[in-house]
């Protein structure tokens, strides 16, 4: 994936999380998470359900106030100056929060009015064509499939041309083919210089879309880096073999030679060597699988 040109010059951080903490009753959802995201960067938060990804996004998008710490977008603290950040952000939430009793066009019309989108009469048909929903523009959203609703949400979030786009589990519940179509649409948006924050529990999604990935578990950020850096930190090659009682075992090795010699130890039956992925990083760090 090629690097794109940022809309704004300089390497200034567009988003900063400063030791953000959020609890719901006795449940500590986010436990002091910090990270910086540069302008134009596509940043992923990867982790299993309940890791605190959505809560983090909610704090950045003015839906939830942190108990302590600060969420900063373009130099403004979200909690104390939400009016400064709202014109900058677009959100595709995890829950499909479209108005199901309105048509696709009406949904985008209302959103355009809320965000004061100029020339929306021309922009809405264009937006609908981009996500291949133009022919269904006058249909009620209640009749749309899950994939169509996710596409409409993406079109809606992009209408005001936000500088920062939040995608909370953008392809959740979509079948693999439609998921790839969604990824193509997301890739197109990053070439327009946007800063994009994606939460996902799909390994392939994080690897396919993100420049950098923060790995979250139980409210904490346990690793941060480019997918290549994260994989290199645990080893690039994975040797898989059948262990005692038929269990699938794996060893992560740094070099190809180490991987071959490890494979030989297991007599070559049911043994394979593959490149490591972010799931392996997560397993190495936590001893658990993401999904």
């Amino acid at each position: 994936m090629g690097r794109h040109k940022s809309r704004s010059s300089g390497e200034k951080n567009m988003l900063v999380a400063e030791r953000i903490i959020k609890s719901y009753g006795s449940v500590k959802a986010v436990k002091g998470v910090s990270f910086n995201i540069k302008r134009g960067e596509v940043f992923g938060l990867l982790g299993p359900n309940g890791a605190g990804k959505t809560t983090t996004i909610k704090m950045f998008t003015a839906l939830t106030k942190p108990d302590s710490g600060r969420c900063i977008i373009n130099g403004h603290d979200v909690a104390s100056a939400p009016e400064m950040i709202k014109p900058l952000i677009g959100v595709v939430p995890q829950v499909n929060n479209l108005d199901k009793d309105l048509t696709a066009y009406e949904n985008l019309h209302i959103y355009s009015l809320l965000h004061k989108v100029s020339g929306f009469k021309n922009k809405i048909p264009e937006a609908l064509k981009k996500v291949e929903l133009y022919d269904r523009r006058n249909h009620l959203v209640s009749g749309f499939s899950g994939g169509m609703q996710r596409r409409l949400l993406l079109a809606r979030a992009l209408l005001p041309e936000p500088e920062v786009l939040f995608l909370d589990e953008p392809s959740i519940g979509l079948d693999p083919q439609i998921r790839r179509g969604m990824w193509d649409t997301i890739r197109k948006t990053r070439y327009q210089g946007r800063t994009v924050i994606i939460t996902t529990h799909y390994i392939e999604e994080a690897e396919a879309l993100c420049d950098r990935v923060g790995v979250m578990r139980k409210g904490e950020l346990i690793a941060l880096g480019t997918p290549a850096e994260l994989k290199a930190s645990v080893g690039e090659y994975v040797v898989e073999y059948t262990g005692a009682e038929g269990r699938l075992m794996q060893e992560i090795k740094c070099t190809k030679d180490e991987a071959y010699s490890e494979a030989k130890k297991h007599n070559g039956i049911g043994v394979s060597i593959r490149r490591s992925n972010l799931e392996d990083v997560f397993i190495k760090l936590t001893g658990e699988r993401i999904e």
Partner: protein
Amino acid sequence: MIQYGWYAVFIRQMLLFRRKILKMGYVFSAMMMPVVYLIAFGFGLGGSVKIHGTDYLSFLVPGLAAMSSMNNSYNWVASSLNLNRLYFKNFQTFVQAPISPSSILAGEVLAGMVKGLFASMFIIIVGVCFAANFHISFPFIVALLLNTFLFASLGVITGMITKTHEDTSTYSNFLIMPMAFFSGTFFPVDQIPVLLKWFIYLLPLTHTNILIRKASFDQGALVSLLILIIYAFIFFICGSRLIKNYSE
């Protein structure tokens, strides 16, 4: 500061309202209760009852207009806000949009007013056609507008503080329904025991019922008008604060 954003919130509600009206079920549910009261009390009981020397139907119609405008402006706002916040989650799109909390409130309240006025329209038509001494006075119009405004604002408050959808009907049963019966809808408040009277005069619907039956703005009408304005102001400010401090 209320800005242009109220229009988006209002238009959304009107588009949804238009679809509901076309489904007809909404129209029946909104108008059913006042129509039952109108037939049972107005046409049934009304023939043999006179209040302050006037026929009962002419007394009842303004009360029912106030009651049904209260019920509908309150219930539809409280219920839709509660569902949009807790279940459909589309309230998030308002919170994340670059519009002020007062704009969100104003849009919801205006939409609630339209629903309340729509529901009371049928009663008013019946009054104009069948009640001998019923007239649409200037205080009548002011009372109806203020009534829908303050109860739609109260609906926003309920919609913002309820934690489950069931809570909405709890508030309605304990707050709205007793008010419908004791605030002078069906009989004059002066017939209520003295001990209860001070409480009845605290209720906003009592003052709507006083104002709505006045032919002109006499002293009593002005007192009730002032009380309704104070209630409307307090509810609007509280609703606005709740939206401003919204956090999931």
